[in-house]
């Protein structure tokens, strides 16, 4: 599980190109400049690629924060 | 207001020279005819700009020059005449007007060597070009101005109002739109074809600092262009003019929108200019 947790975090950092030292698990869509509409699509692509899943549109739209993402990924059997 | 002693006579002489060249070119056009009337109505405006107001010199490509756009491109006789007075176009080249392979056609075709900065002729496009240039000048921190002459009939085009809306949004206080309000378009008067209503109220409502004057009166034009107290709005000048101004046979006669100038009328015109 901690592997998945590290993976999840690193996908966030890499996809959104944010500084790993300023990363916070409270990060939300549109609250940091990097997580704008383009950042969001890049992040979704990174998560799909990284976890080998294909997310439904509704889930992509609802994926509004790091924490919300944890819930959503459970649907795809990714336990973090 | 101090009127520099020679300014207004200089402008008047320039106007006379323009009318002489316009007459010549119209005659040379022969059976191809020319847009005589609409060129004559803007003579005093063009004279005031080229001989007094605009920051220009003998280099048509001087980077620090003010810019001029003849959005009502069919009035090019006045434009070519002015460029000739500036020395950019030779008197000989003026005689090639509307001839095969000429650089001087019935609407301006871009030719920076001759001082023709843009191609115009399809109405409604010049003000947008002017906005692009005005924005560029501001970005480059130049204090140059952009002068665009539009026709009143041209204001039928929706694209004029797109530009009008944008210019005030961008606070382009370096942009002038001078509307040649000669009250006619091709097929008849504006009121017969598509009434413009109150042109000055329209421009004002679009956010332009709007003025009106007699566009064929050099003194009024001089006074307007001498005034340097302005707001941060673009400026619209509704110039009330007479189509075909300057010759008895063409004044207020819409037949002269586009017509043939015969030898007789050419001779008569020359006499009237004396």
């Amino acid at each position, binding site marked *: 599980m901690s592997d998945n947790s590290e993976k999840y975090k690193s996908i966030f950092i890499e996809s959104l190109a944010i500084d790993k030292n300023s990363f916070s698990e409270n990060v939300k869509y549109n609250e940091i400049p990097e997580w704008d509409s*383009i950042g969001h*699509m*890049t992040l979704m*692509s990174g998560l799909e690629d990284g976890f080998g899943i294909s997310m439904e549109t509704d889930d992509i739209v609802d994926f509004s924060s790091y924490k919300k993402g944890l819930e959503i990924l459970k649907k795809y059997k990714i336990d973090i | 207001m101090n009127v520099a002693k020679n300014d207004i006579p200089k402008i008047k002489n320039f106007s006379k020279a323009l009318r002489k060249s316009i007459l010549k070119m119209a005659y040379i056009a022969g059976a191809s005819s020319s847009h005589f009337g609409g060129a004559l109505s803007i003579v005093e405006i063009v004279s005031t700009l080229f001989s007094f107001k605009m920051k220009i010199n003998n280099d048509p490509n001087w980077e620090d020059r003010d810019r001029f756009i003849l959005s009502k491109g069919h009035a090019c006789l006045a434009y070519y005449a002015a460029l000739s007075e500036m020395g950019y176009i030779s008197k000989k080249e003026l005689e090639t007007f509307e001839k095969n392979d000429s650089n001087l056609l019935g609407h301006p075709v871009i030719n920076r060597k001759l001082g023709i900065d843009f191609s115009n002729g*399809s109405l409604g496009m010049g003000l*947008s*070009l002017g906005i*692009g240039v005005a924005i560029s000048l501001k970005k480059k921190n130049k204090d140059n101005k952009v002068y665009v002459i539009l026709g009143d009939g041209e204001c039928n085009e929706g694209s004029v109002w*797109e*530009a009008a809306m944008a210019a005030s949004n961008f606070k382009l206080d370096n942009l002038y739109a001078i509307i040649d309000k000669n009250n006619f378009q091709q097929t008849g008067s504006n009121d017969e074809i598509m009434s413009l209503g109150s042109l000055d109220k329209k421009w004002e409502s679009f956010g332009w600092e709007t003025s009106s004057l007699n566009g064929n009166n050099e003194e009024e034009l001089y006074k307007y262009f001498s005034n340097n107290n302005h707001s941060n709005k673009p400026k619209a000048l509704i110039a009330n003019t007479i189509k075909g101004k300057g010759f008895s046979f063409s004044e207020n006669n819409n037949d002269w929108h586009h017509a043939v100038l015969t030898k007789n009328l050419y001779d008569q015109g020359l006499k009237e200019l004396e």
Partner: protein
Amino acid sequence: MIINERNIKMWSTIGSRATFGISALELAKKINNLMILTCDVSTSAGLDRYRKTFPEKYLDLGIAEQNMIGIAAGLSSEGYNVITTTFAPFQTIRCCEQIKVNIGYMKQKICMVGIASGLALGNLGYTHCCIEDIGILRSIPGISIISPADSFETIKSLEAAVKCSNSVYIRLTGSKNNPIVYKEDYEFQIGKAIKLREGKDLTIFSSGAMVYTSLKVAEELEKEKVSCNVVNVHTIKPLDISAIDEAVKKSKFLISVEEHNIIGGLGSAISEHLADISNSPKLLRIGIKDEYSKGGSYDFLKEKHGLSVDKIVKNILSNFKKA
């Protein structure tokens, strides 16, 4: 832009519009005099981040496309490197005369990017589809026309167009999850078609999103023992006539596949060249047969217009037998 597998996959997922936005952002970091003009479409063109990062290199003219082209020309005349973008029909047809006068006639250099061209927005109706843009712009002298095959080629096209000395129209097709045609870096040159697959019997010429479809078609045809070349004609104007000539020599039958009216687009351009060649093989033009159908999803419309893999395969097989 770093070209690696991960990024190529990411660009494919986000689609050509958002890829255009990212590419524009990178260009703005290097090109001082870049200006991007839009008509109230920043997010739709993937330019939100660009707009926030480089506000001084961005102008939104509101819903006024004719004005946009005039302003673009004015800026270009003063030395700026200008890109304009909005939805394809409004980028090309709404301001067509301004394109003719300012870009074609006056030769003010501008790169125009038409987003969501073809049938991608079919559920919004044909006002928001564009099946005419190539045909219309081909008639205006002086404008190169490029239709990138995938998101990666979108980046290549934009970089080339911005450096090019004449005006360019880039036609973006496809949607999100845009299939990948180019899996690794390659050389892109405006005007030079790229052969993606070798074959002995037929040549399929295609551009835009139909290139991937054409590759799939070739795979299916192989199963029917029909061997196809597939050529990505990313630049429809100027047309790479050497690529056409090669196909004329080596193939028994030619096909063009496009998400555009068969009148005026890639197929027409190829026909024009073939008309100068005696005894050229027949050309089957596959595309939209000069009609506005009822609307629907992108896939629905492709199927309806015979642009699905199955329909194209059947069409080619029945016509090839006759040829």
